[in-house]
């Protein structure tokens, strides 16, 4: 604990108090509340076991595994091109973004690089899946707090983005479009113009959401100062993406690593927030969505001519070696540690998914909050169940 703002300090004291209460023999009997696996707030089948003292949580722990599909084992019996079909399903709201780090890792091992055109299109699709993912998050925020309207607006506007993704790749949710050495296809005719219009709509959506939800005082009072995560703790737990940046850590894998995606072609900003509370996490995500729209708009004007696929053997054998590539996915740092033994398929793939680490902090951050805050904190930490369970 280094320097803490007032809010952080208050939250810290509350959690310490809850800690103390847990350790003292109480005359009253606590209640164990089992939230999930089937529960409206858990976006799937996450289970949270919370021990309550009145309405205050004195101990909470998420319990995952209700949807574990064993992708790490399954990848060992797939060929490299087949793996993308599986890993599409990890974060199902931003599927294309899941493929990219794996493909980059395979390309790194094979020592090839996608043509510039493919890289730019990859980046555009990557950002589109981020927009599709995070726009739903922005709508879902309201629902977790009883405001049902934003989620419908989010679904409406996300549909435009999904249409774009479908137009380019043929799949709304699971494109499976990225190939080792490039992309499956080029962009269809008229796609670029349409994307520009949609991006303007999405920026409008961000503005609308900001005034409708973020400007709401009840929303602010529910979010500000709740679920504060100091930067030190965030780093220790491996929080990534907007959750980390909301704690004031200026780190974005899109900017801070040398990777074969075209973020350096455009002018954009990494948003951070010093507070580290639920509000900060949501706010950073909102800014990022807007920033993503700007990235896409800029990249659309810079797509170079050329092929979208480099020359790769028809039967892909990846040379022996190990590589770890991670990218800044909608949920945070997603990486694949790929070990190849020179076969058709990987020897081992360790999938570093963002939500797994993001959720592991839940038992720390939920301590001392009230029951209603459980849902707001969970929703501001933003997890996709497939991303926890893999």
């Amino acid at each position, binding site marked *: 604990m280094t320097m803490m703002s007032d809010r952080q300090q208050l939250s810290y004291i509350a959690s310490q108090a809850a800690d103390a209460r847990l350790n003292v023999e109480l005359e009253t009997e606590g209640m164990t509340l089992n939230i999930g696996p089937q529960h409206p707030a858990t976006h799937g089948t996450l289970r949270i076991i919370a021990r309550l003292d009145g309405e205050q949580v004195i101990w909470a722990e998420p319990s995952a595994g209700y949807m574990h599909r064993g992708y790490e084992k399954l990848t060992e019996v797939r060929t490299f091109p087949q793996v993308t079909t599986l890993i599409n399903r990890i974060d199902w709201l931003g599927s294309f973004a899941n493929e990219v780090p794996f493909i980059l890792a395979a390309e790194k091992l094979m020592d090839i690089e996608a043509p510039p055109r493919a890289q730019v299109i990859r980046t555009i699709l990557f950002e589109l899946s981020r927009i599709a993912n995070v726009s739903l998050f922005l709508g879902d925020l309201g629902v977790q707090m009883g405001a049902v*309207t934003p989620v*419908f*607006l989010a679904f409406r506007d996300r549909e435009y983005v999904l249409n774009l993704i479908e137009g380019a790749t043929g799949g709304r949710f699971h494109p499976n479009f990225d190939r080792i050495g490039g992309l499956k296809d080029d962009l269809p005719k008229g796609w670029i113009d349409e994307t520009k219009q949609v991006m303007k709509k999405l920026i409008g959506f961000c503005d609308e959401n900001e005034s409708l939800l973020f400007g709401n005082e009840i929303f602010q009072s529910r979010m500000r100062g709740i679920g504060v995560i100091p930067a030190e703790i965030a780093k220790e737990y491996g929080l990534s993406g907007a959750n980390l940046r909301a704690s004031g850590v200026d780190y974005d894998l899109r900017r801070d690593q040398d990777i074969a995606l075209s973020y350096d072609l455009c002018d954009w900003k990494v948003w951070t927030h010093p507070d580290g509370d639920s509000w900060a996490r949501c706010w950073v995500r909102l800014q990022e969505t807007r920033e993503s729209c700007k990235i896409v708009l800029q990249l659309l004007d810079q797509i170079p001519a050329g092929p979208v696929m480099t020359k790769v053997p028809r039967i892909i054998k990846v040379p022996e070696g190990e590589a770890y590539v991670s990218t800044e996915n909608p949920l945070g740092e997603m990486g694949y540690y790929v070990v190849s033994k020179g076969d058709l398929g990987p020897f081992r793939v360790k999938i570093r998914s963002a939500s797994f680490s993001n959720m592991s902090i839940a038992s720390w951050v939920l301590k001392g909050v009230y029951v*209603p805050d459980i849902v707001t904190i969970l929703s501001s930490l933003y997890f996709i169940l497939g991303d926890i369970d893999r």
Partner: protein
Amino acid sequence: MINTLAVEIPYWGQSIFRVVGGLVAVLLPAGGIVYLFLFKMMSFMQSRLGPMEAGPYGSMQLLAEVGKWLQKEDIQPDNADKTIFKMAPVVVLLSTFLLIVVVPFGPEAFFTDLDAGVFYFLAVGSVSVLGILMAGWSSANKYSLLGGLRAAGQLIAYELPMVLATLGVVIQAGSMNLQTIVVAQNTGEIFGWGGLGNPFILTQGVGFLIFMIAVQAELTQPPFDMPIAESELVSGYMTEYSGFRFLMFFIAEFATAGVFAFIASVMFLGGWGVPFDWFGWSNLDDVDWWMNIVGPLILTTKMFGLVLVIMWVRFSSPRFREDQLQTFAWKFLIPLSLANVAVTAILKVVF
């Protein structure tokens, strides 16, 4: 009402007449509110169409829904306290029906004309708390229990500002009889000008706001829907209910919205009346008989206007946390309404 028809109706006939009238007065507005606001207004606010298939513009959708609910199995949890579990929705709905009893719809169109009407509706309105608490406790479900307890705390907290807000009206009208309050508003004058009467929303604006906020809380609607809070407590005290019993909660929710809007328009918007100046009436006895037909329509129109506000807030607000909600009631609304009462009393003495 009875005198107007100029026929002698025996007591049992009057009773049946009143029961049917009560059902109509509660269920018709409730159906209208569900269709107009829950189905259609909410849909338009959320850029969708809402039900469109059943009947013209989906107007028969509610009947289909009711049919669906009636067909569903009446499930009771094993560990539930079965008798109480079954009684709870009846108690909640009962409170709604009891409320409608005192609402004056016209000069002679009312179910009863109690001298302490305001007192009665405040008392009867709290009966629903009992039903909610019964539902929460008897369901043998932790979510229900939390929801029930939250509801109890919240309803008690907001009962107080509601009482204090009505107190201003009572002081100004000088009566607890709702009929008298209506007449007082319509015969009133604003600085000697009676063209608009003197609806108490003008002099009791603060009271009206407090009353509407308290109504919103009594109805457990967003931003005060902590007891239901579907994203954290699944459905609060209603979690274990299904089929017909859920339908009763559902009807009670919207019918109560209607009834409270009735009462609010009676107390603050002039009720069934038009300014008596327009037709040269000076007191209740002068009012023409046709007001018994037009009055209910006027009152219903005002009621729908108020429900529109209630629903608008409901569909567009996130919800407070339980402690924030209590803080808001105890630290803000109650002092404000006390001040309102004090100022009203002083002004009443001065003028």
